């Protein structure tokens, strides 16, 4: 446990980096909140563990794979995503009201939150740094094709782009186009093709050939 004395020593040594200062300030705040009884340290550890080990984009990948192999599930997902996703066991915080949007040759969907960082945690986990960045948030609604190019995605010129700005508590999951050559794959294998970015719209699924390579 670092105290004020450690901090003074750090300053004297000229080693007080920005990160070092944040470490100290956060530690100090946590100490005060725990001492006052507002937070339970065991609950903090449990919260962190939940998002490090139990919730992540593999959840969303299973939803997409299911939609690819099961037309009835796909229809349910597109008409009532919250219920269809909950049926696979994924519910909760920052995914209370889900909408699934399907990519087609005619339309590519891209999700952003220009006002903060709204993101469907229960199916995709915590958002990547770029999703929360000023660069992505400012440009996705205005120049999405250029943004996609930076992600290495080139769409056919006649594919229209639809951008979903998550301004309320509705959260969006993109259902990407099932890759060619994946016809013989089962649900588990299909899920390995579904990348996090393909469910945000900044990426495409991995092709089965690339997986074999």
């Amino acid at each position, binding site marked *: 446990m670092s*105290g*004020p004395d450690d901090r003074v020593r750090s300053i004297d040594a000229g080693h007080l980096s920005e*990160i070092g200062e*944040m470490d100290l*300030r*956060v530690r*100090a*705040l946590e*100490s*005060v*909140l725990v*001492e*006052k*009884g*507002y*937070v*339970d340290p065991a*609950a903090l*550890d449990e*919260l*962190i563990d939940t998002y*490090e080990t139990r*919730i992540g*984009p593999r959840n969303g990948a299973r939803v997409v794979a299911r939609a690819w192999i099961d037309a009835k599930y796909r229809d349910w997902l597109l008409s009532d995503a919250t219920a269809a996703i909950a049926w696979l066991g994924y*519910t909760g*915080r920052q995914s*209370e*009201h889900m*909408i699934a949007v399907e990519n087609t040759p005619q339309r590519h969907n891209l999700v*952003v939150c*220009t*006002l*903060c960082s709204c993101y469907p945690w229960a199916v995709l986990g915590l958002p*990547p*740094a*770029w999703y929360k*960045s*000023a*660069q*992505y*948030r*400012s*440009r996705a*609604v*205005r120049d*999405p*094709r250029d943004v996609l190019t*930076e*992600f290495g995605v080139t769409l056919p010129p*006649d*594919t*229209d782009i*639809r*951008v979903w*700005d*998550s*301004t*309320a*508590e*509705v959260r969006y999951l993109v259902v990407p186009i099932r890759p060619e050559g994946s016809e013989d794959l089962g649900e588990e294998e299909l899920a390995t093709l579904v990348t996090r970015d393909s469910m945000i719209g900044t990426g495409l699924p991995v092709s089965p050939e690339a997986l074999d390579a």
Partner: protein
Amino acid sequence: MSSDDYVTHADLGGQLGHGSIKLESGFEPWHAAWEPRVFALQLAMGAAGVWNLDMTRSARETLPDYLQRSYYEIWFGALLKQLEERGLVSADELAAGRSLRPPIPVPRIVRARDVPTLQAHGAPTERSATKAPLFAVGRHVRTICGPIPHHTRLPGYAQGKTAVIERLHGMHVFADANANGHGEQPQWLYTVVFRGTDLWPDAEGGLTVSIDAWEPYLEAA
């Protein structure tokens, strides 16, 4: 938290000059050891029932150095601001790293055993419909025009523009009211779609952009 000089620094949609996107591979959610602690402190205090998520978003977007802060520095700054404003923690306590005053009772203290339920249930914002929606799918509407002197979820780029109603989501807690401590005041929530060319002079032809807009953001067009 409403005033004539309310300034948000988070309304970034369409702003030019932010440069190229810094991509990263991998799924590591944290970039410093303190970040998961801030994340967990925010979630635990958010569930304590002292403030709501809309108030937190307002506290974040009004940090004067918002754009200079990293993401979890924004979270930390807003958490501290909310704790200090409500007298739960004071600056001298943060400097000392220990409590100097008795705690103020809070509605709820989250325990480890509460976390799975808390996560699984989340905080749904849909409420029972108490009136009919003003607009039907396919209807042309116009968004209201700012300035809006308080927290709002109507982005600047989408103000004063024509759009089409695409979907109704039921009545949801109205962020603008809830952030200002005026209660939930549920309103009908719609997905409304704009043509890109109605938003940006340089938009490509087929682009459409949607936002989720509460009814008070919309007028018949």
